[in-house]
């Protein structure tokens, strides 16, 4: 469909007309791995390795399995949140409500469960339900009402955050029973090499596996297509609104899981989870996922979260004041995105310059919104 594929002619690949296979699918496995590593989504793993070596260099004990597994456990919530944010971003949207959802869940856990151990399972069910509802609200607001996702999720963020603070009076209230907190901070004791295997690591692995499976399923393929070009996806028969809504649901549910884990570490306070949305977005962007949708791998998002936390650990070991964290985070995301804006072109598609820059094929292409879809 010309209206869909011929938009910004200079930047959109025209794979169908060139008749070439995509570079990622040709060549032997090592070649493909190498080429994959050159894309931002692969480069983050190299960055991760470099940072890991640097941290171990500074502080050798960090490399010991028990230390390492604890670090992974600590980072699990943000990694899970980043994977949740990934679905939304790859669909071309934003989810700013993540932090507020985490705060809501934490407060619910604190107040509903209390000292009653029998309420742990119903509470988890309730929290997941609330997560799904928030996701549906965000998703339907974005797709059916066609409000920009930035605004919808900003609205839910203000509304949920305000409500939680109103109900709690802005102070820490309630304290869930220890068995619930064990999910976040406990683990399986006496594991041979690792000493202790935190539950959060197990949950992280499960979520990661599920994410990979999801992104390889028809849903994942459709999601990426919808993020890359919703017009084309819609014309190809995909229910764009339902796919995007599911992405928002996945995001909120991920925030819920992150919230459950965070209860173990932090107390029950409405400010838990503040700023999580931007941290998750930073991690996703660091993982080479393109804002505006359609590019990026889910595991890269998780790797981005780990890279970010490793970097913070590194700065800690270097005794840099923690107030500089924000600055470092800011520099990173700018550099990562500036690099990614160029690098995705290397490994993925034929050079777009070879497509003759057709002088604005038809007036229909000039529709705002496609521009921000690019990076």
């Amino acid at each position, binding site marked *: 469909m010309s209206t869909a594929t011929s938009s910004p002619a200079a930047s959109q690949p025209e794979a169908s007309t060139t008749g070439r296979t995509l570079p990622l699918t040709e060549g032997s496995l090592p070649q493909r791995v190498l080429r994959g590593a050159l894309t931002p989504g692969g480069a983050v793993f190299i960055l991760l390795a470099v940072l890991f070596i640097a941290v171990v260099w500074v502080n050798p004990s960090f490399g010991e399995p028990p230390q390492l597994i604890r670090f992974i456990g600590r980072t699990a919530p943000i990694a899970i949140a980043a994977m949740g944010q990934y679905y939304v971003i790859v669909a071309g949207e934003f989810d700013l409500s993540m932090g507020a959802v985490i705060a809501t869940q934490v407060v619910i856990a604190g107040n509903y469960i209390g000292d009653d151990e029998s309420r742990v399972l119903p509470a988890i069910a309730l929290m997941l339900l609330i997560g799904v509802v928030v996701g549906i609200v965000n998703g339907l607001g974005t797709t059916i009402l066609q409000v920009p996702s930035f605004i919808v999720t900003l609205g839910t963020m203000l509304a949920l955050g305000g409500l939680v603070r109103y109900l709690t009076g802005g102070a820490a209230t309630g304290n869930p029973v220890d068995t619930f907190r064990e999910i976040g901070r406990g683990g399986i004791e006496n594991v041979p090499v690792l000493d202790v295997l935190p539950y959060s690591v197990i949950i992280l692995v499960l979520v990661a596996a599920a994410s990979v499976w999801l992104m390889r399923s028809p849903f994942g393929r459709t999601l990426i297509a919808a993020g890359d070009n919703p*017009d084309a996806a819609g014309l190809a028969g995909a229910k764009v609104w339902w796919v995007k809504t599911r992405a928002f649901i996945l995001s909120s549910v991920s925030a819920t899981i992150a919230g459950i884990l965070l209860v173990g570490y932090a107390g029950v306070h409405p400010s838990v989870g503040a700023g999580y949305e931007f941290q998750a977005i930073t991690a996703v962007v660091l993982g080479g996922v393109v804002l505006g949708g359609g590019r990026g791998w889910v595991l890269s998002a998780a790797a981005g979260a780990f890279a970010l936390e490793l970097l913070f650990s590194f700065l800690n070991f270097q005794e840099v004041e923690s107030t500089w964290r924000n600055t470092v985070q800011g520099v990173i995301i700018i550099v990562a995105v500036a690099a990614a804006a160029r690098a995705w072109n290397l490994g993925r598609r034929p050079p777009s310059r070879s497509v003759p820059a057709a002088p604005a094929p038809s007036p229909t292409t000039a529709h705002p919104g496609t521009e921000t879809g690019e990076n």
Partner: protein
Amino acid sequence: MSATTDRTPDPAHTPGAATSTESRDSVRSRRAARPRRARQLDSTALIYLVLVGVVIVSAVLTALEGRNFFSQGNIWAVLTAMSVLGLIAIGQTLVILVGSLDLSVPYVVSLATVIAAGGMQGLDGNIPAAVFNTLVVCAVVGLVMGLLVSVLHVHGFIASLGVGLIVSGYLATNYQGSHGSAAPDLRLLGRSGIAGWIPTSFLVLLACAVLVTLMLRYTRLGHHVYAIGGNRDVARMSGVRTVLPVVSAHVLCSVLVGLAALLLLSRTGVGSPTIGSQGRYDLLSIAAVVLGGTLLAGGKGSVVGTMGGVAIFAVLDSVMGVMQVNPFLKDFIRGLVIVLAVAVYARRSVVRRPPRFGSGSRSSLPGSTMKEGTA
């Protein structure tokens, strides 16, 4: 006036001609459902109608509390509340029109108050130098963002978030608590006004709004801003130099934010490194801009509409203050208002768009309007 400021300058299509193209059928069915009067309304008129409605409701609610909404003090308070957010929102309008976004606003506000207050040290003689320094620093911050967005092609969301984080790290490291103090003359400015009804800060806001509106409507730069926001590639291929307008929009935005910070300083008297993030000026200004009918994707909107959006927020805040609504509940209500208003609104502006391009089939495609509503 509002009828033309609202859309991209496009001599080929007057509103009358637009409705007479073949797209008429798809639009007609929707329009037929509305009364004849409403058909003539564009988004700017709508927002002011909503504003009138909000004012009436607020006046009634205020009267129920035994107070007068139109009293001298209250009008003064509302206009003062408008001025700071208004200046920021004007800048944000420029940036959003050009297809970018500015999330660095709160940190730039804080930075500006700290620099200005630190420079003045409570002495009138220091005012010119301090004001000059502040605005230059703000302009430099804007310049950096503009160059990142236009030259390095970093998404505006990330560029401004990154720069904002960098500034926040600097602030957190170097300033603890309040800093410096405003000169007496500046404080006087914060309390002066015309006849006790209209504060000087509101006049500053009006002057800026008029200037920016004139700039957008009558200068080449302004027209290029709309063109680039509509579609950067098409604008470039049409011979528009895309770097200058993007950079100018960001610089102007940051300078306006600096002005807003000076107004804020004239009221608080001391510079504070956290005043911006407490005010949530980034998200509120974006919400005000979108509420004012500007497309978040860029290319369509007006400063006039933005002022309406800002006024709605100011009136809401005023009435919630009078009714002594819990401050946390305020956020809840704000979030609700944002989503509801934009939901009514985003639908409308999307429906109104297609005639401009004379292709009726697009508007009825599933998902073809989806991307416009997203950011």
